[in-house]
């Protein structure tokens, strides 16, 4: 039982109200004390030794007690039987004297009847056992006229009476008639004498004359006398004696109240055999025995049909041995207690070092290793344990030192990895991008490396006012080498992109750079796309990367197209492009194989089917929800199987083409002819003028456009007469943006060498490349790309915003 602190507290505060709890508290103390004691091995050892010895002693004692008890009983039977026989003999002797007296008197009286009274009186005086003597004659003419009866009175004097004169004639009485028939003399049944007020029993001896029975000599003894005889017998203490007549009634008993009662049936059965016998009565008849079991030893009294009985209470028989056993047990118990104490002391002394070792072990658990160990006394188990403990401590100290060193090293590595992770994260642009200018597309990217750093990458940035570059890549291998290669790739990509201007160029240039000194043969698969943020036109090129997925409002499908070799392997690889025009609401999803090759616990791959299915089912079409939903689905699929590869998802959601307020100033398609070109130039000029563009910028624009378009008309037709030029002009916040598309032969104005300028154009016959030189000088930015649809030129002219003088962004010059 345990007492909680709160209960104990309440006991203290309200002990007067709740005295019961005090006992509980006390019991708790006792239980705890016992538990404390039993926590020591020495205590438990001595306790169990004690308990075991006591058990053994108790069992052995019980068996011995049982065996010895039987012997004691046998012995007691022998002794008691002998005692009973002896006592029976003694009574028999006394009764025989009475019978002898009667026989003698009978023969005397038979031969000489005169003076009978004196003879009787004399006999009575000499034999104190007799209570009375009578000579009763059969009434006849030649018989004695009187039948004298002499009895001993209470005061000792002798009384005399003539039986003839009694009112009831004795010759009709049973005792007289029975006595006459009893020719050898016999003991009669006891009777109660009215005159003498006592129980008597008489012996009748016939008086014979001439072969005829003429009367009886009747010798009375009182039962009191018999009782006195019994009392006088030497008996063991607690035992008692009795005499039973042939009818089963007690003639005499040490307990006078029993006289006259009949014996128990068990007793009577034994009595019937009329021999020396013993019988056990479960419940003694004698009330003095207290209802306990008694052994009765019966001995027949010869000359009579009576039996003498000696009753011994059973408890009395065993009393001695029981007492002896109790003593032995007490002694044994004392000895065992002493043994337990000795065991306790020895065990304590032997195990004392163990206790010290136990507390030292707690030191070790706390990390303290400098402490005293108990001295080794004997090379026993405790000694060996102490040695082993000492060795363990030394080894442990060494081990801990090594571990600490390793842990520090690990920590350093972990912190380096952590920093590397931060740096790598910093290389990636933010997760979410919403085109702030026109809000016509939205991008959401998620990258989750399998380790602290990984080889997946994504990047996106505006190439210029209009074109947006996005890429997703996956470096072969994982971990730090991949991360370094990824850093190299992403940095190079960003540096090369403005120069490359088209995905295929960017991939080719990247490939060349990455092939350089790539002894480790690492490579990166990369999918690069450039989006026209005005129109939603997307040009993609892939270097061995997974095909992107295009999600419509209700379907998702792969955009399959030919891919080039992964970057870093083949420096002559080339990269085909695929152009796509995104429709409002469509989302393009780029990802790495971490998605499709994610495996669950059963080693099944997530696969392309599941990915398409998941994207199709996605309730929301927003970039963030698609990307996050896909990642969540992958997580559900792997179900904690562990991420084996880096995972990247990038979703690009096309909202709508340029809104009205950002509508192009001019969007036209013309035939590649001089007239139309100049017509277009006029319209451009007019549009710019209408939008408040300064004349200086307008002239620059005009010059550049004229040079470029005239060039296209004059040199780009490639023999065909129906070439077209597309011109899109858009006014940005601080710049005029122009796109020129021409379906003629490839011509990259950026690749034209700078003309030799001597300071006088007239020096040379015809200086080439003047126009392109002017273009490059006039346009703030110029980019060129070429694909299967022809040449694409993008131009940007900064212009001071005169209409919004307080605008945040100042144009740069």
């Amino acid at each position, binding site marked *: 039982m345990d007492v909680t602190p709160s209960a104990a507290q309440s006991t203290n505060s309200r002990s007067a109200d709740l005295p019961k709890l005090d006992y509980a508290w006390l019991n708790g103390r006792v239980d705890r004390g016992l538990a404390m004691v039993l926590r020591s091995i020495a205590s438990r050892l001595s306790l169990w030794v004690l308990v075991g010895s006591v058990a053994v002693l108790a069992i052995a004692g019980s068996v011995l007690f049982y065996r010895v008890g039987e012997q004691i009983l046998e012995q007691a039977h022998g002794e008691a039987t002998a005692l009973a026989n002896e006592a029976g003999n003694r009574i028999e002797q006394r009764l025989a004297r009475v019978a002898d007296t009667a026989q003698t008197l009978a023969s005397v009286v038979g031969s000489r009847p005169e003076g009978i009274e004196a003879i009787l009186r004399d006999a009575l005086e000499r034999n104190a056992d007799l209570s009375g003597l009578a000579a009763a004659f059969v009434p006849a003419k030649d018989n004695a006229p009187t039948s004298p009866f002499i009895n001993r009175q209470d005061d000792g004097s002798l009384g005399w009476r003539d039986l003839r004169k009694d009112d009831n004639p004795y010759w009709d009485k049973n005792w007289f008639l029975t006595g006459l028939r009893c020719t050898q003399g016999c003991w009669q049944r006891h009777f109660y004498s009215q005159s003498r007020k006592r129980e008597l029993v008489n012996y009748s001896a016939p008086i014979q004359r001439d072969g005829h029975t003429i009367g009886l000599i009747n010798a009375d003894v009182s039962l009191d006398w018999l009782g006195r005889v019994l009392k006088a017998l030497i008996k063991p203490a607690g035992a008692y004696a009795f005499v039973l007549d042939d009818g089963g009634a007690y003639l005499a008993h040490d307990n006078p109240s029993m006289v006259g009662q009949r014996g128990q049936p068990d007793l009577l059965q034994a009595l019937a055999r009329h021999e020396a016998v013993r019988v056990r009565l479960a419940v003694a008849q004698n009330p003095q025995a207290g209802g306990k079991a008694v052994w009765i030893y019966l001995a027949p009294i010869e000359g009579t049909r009576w039996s003498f009985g000696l009753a011994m209470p059973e408890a009395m028989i065993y009393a001695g041995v029981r007492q002896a056993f109790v003593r032995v047990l007490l002694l044994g118990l004392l000895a065992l207690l002493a043994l337990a104490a000795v065991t306790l002391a020895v065990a304590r002394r032997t195990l004392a070092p163990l206790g010290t070792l136990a507390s030292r072990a707690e030191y070790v658990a706390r990390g303290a290793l400098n402490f005293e160990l108990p001295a080794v006394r004997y090379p026993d188990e405790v000694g060996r344990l102490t040695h082993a403990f000492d060795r363990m401590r030394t080894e442990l100290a060494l081990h801990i030192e090594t571990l600490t060193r390793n842990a520090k090293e690990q920590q350093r590595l972990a912190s380096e990895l952590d920093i590397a992770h931060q740096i790598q994260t910093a290389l990636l642009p933010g997760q979410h991008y919403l085109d702030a200018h026109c809000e016509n597309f939205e991008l959401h990217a998620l990258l989750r490396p399998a380790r602290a750093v990984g080889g997946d990458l994504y990047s996106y940035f505006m190439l210029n006012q209009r074109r947006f570059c996005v890429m997703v890549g996956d470096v072969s291998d994982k971990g730090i080498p991949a991360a370094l290669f990824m850093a190299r790739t992403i940095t190079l990509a960003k540096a090369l992109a403005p120069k490359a201007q088209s995905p295929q160029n960017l991939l080719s240039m990247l490939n060349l750079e990455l092939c350089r000194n790539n002894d480790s043969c690492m490579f990166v698969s990369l999918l690069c796309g450039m989006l026209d943020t005005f129109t939603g036109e997307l040009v993609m090129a892939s270097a061995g990367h997974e095909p992107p997925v295009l999600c419509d409002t209700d379907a998702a499908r792969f955009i399959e197209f030919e891919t080039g070799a992964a970057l870093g392997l083949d420096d002559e690889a080339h990269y085909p492009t695929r152009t796509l025009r995104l429709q409002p609401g469509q989302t393009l999803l780029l990802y790495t194989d971490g998605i499709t090759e994610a495996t669950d616990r059963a080693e099944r791959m997530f696969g392309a089917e599941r990915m398409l299915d998941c994207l199709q089912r996605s309730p929301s079409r927003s970039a963030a929800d698609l990307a996050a939903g896909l990642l969540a689905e992958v997580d559900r699929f792997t179900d904690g199987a562990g991420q084996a590869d880096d995972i990247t998802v990038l979703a690009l959601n096309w909202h709508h083409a340029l809104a009205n307020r950002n509508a192009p100033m001019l969007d036209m398609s013309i035939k590649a002819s001089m007239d139309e070109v100049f017509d277009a130039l006029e319209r451009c000029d007019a549009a710019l003028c209408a939008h408040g563009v300064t004349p200086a910028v307008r*002239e*620059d624009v005009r*010059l550049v456009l004229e*040079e470029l378009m005239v060039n296209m008309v004059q040199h780009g037709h490639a023999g065909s007469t129906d070439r077209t030029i597309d011109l899109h002009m858009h006014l940005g916040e601080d710049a005029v943006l122009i796109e020129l598309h021409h379906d003629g032969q490839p011509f990259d104005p950026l690749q034209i060498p700078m003309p030799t*300028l001597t300071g006088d*154009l*007239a020096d040379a016959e015809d200086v080439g490349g*003047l126009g392109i*030189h002017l273009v490059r000088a*006039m346009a703030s930015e110029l980019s060129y790309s070429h694909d299967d649809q022809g040449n694409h030129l993008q131009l940007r002219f900064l212009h001071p915003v005169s209409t919004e003088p307080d605008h945040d962004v100042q144009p740069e010059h």
Partner: protein
Amino acid sequence: MTFNLNTEGESPNRITLRLHGRLDAQTFNDFDLAMLDVLPRIAEGGTVVLDLSGLDYISSAGLRSIAKIRRSTRARGGHTLLLNLQPQVRKVFDIVKAVPVNEVFASLQELDDYLDHMQRRMTGQGLPGGS
């Protein structure tokens, strides 16, 4: 009308041409054709003054036309001087370093001073041409 050419103060030694509008890929042909008429009228060593105060715009095609004129006059020991360049035109000229700086004049007065000076040198030394 995007381009116009006027001839002023014509003499065998010196002809002044006033250009108006834009000289570009569309108009340089007309200009070239007109100049085919004008140039033969200049005497050996004569000076052609192109007054560009009315020329708003010039492109590489126009530059080439002007370069042609200058080569032609130079071949005949003459000069081509440019007068009153408008900002756009000046910018284009600067970018391609089209003409030596000393052949460009900001005003008519400057040009006259230069021509007087040339006159004196020619008279004094009897040596035509040179710069």
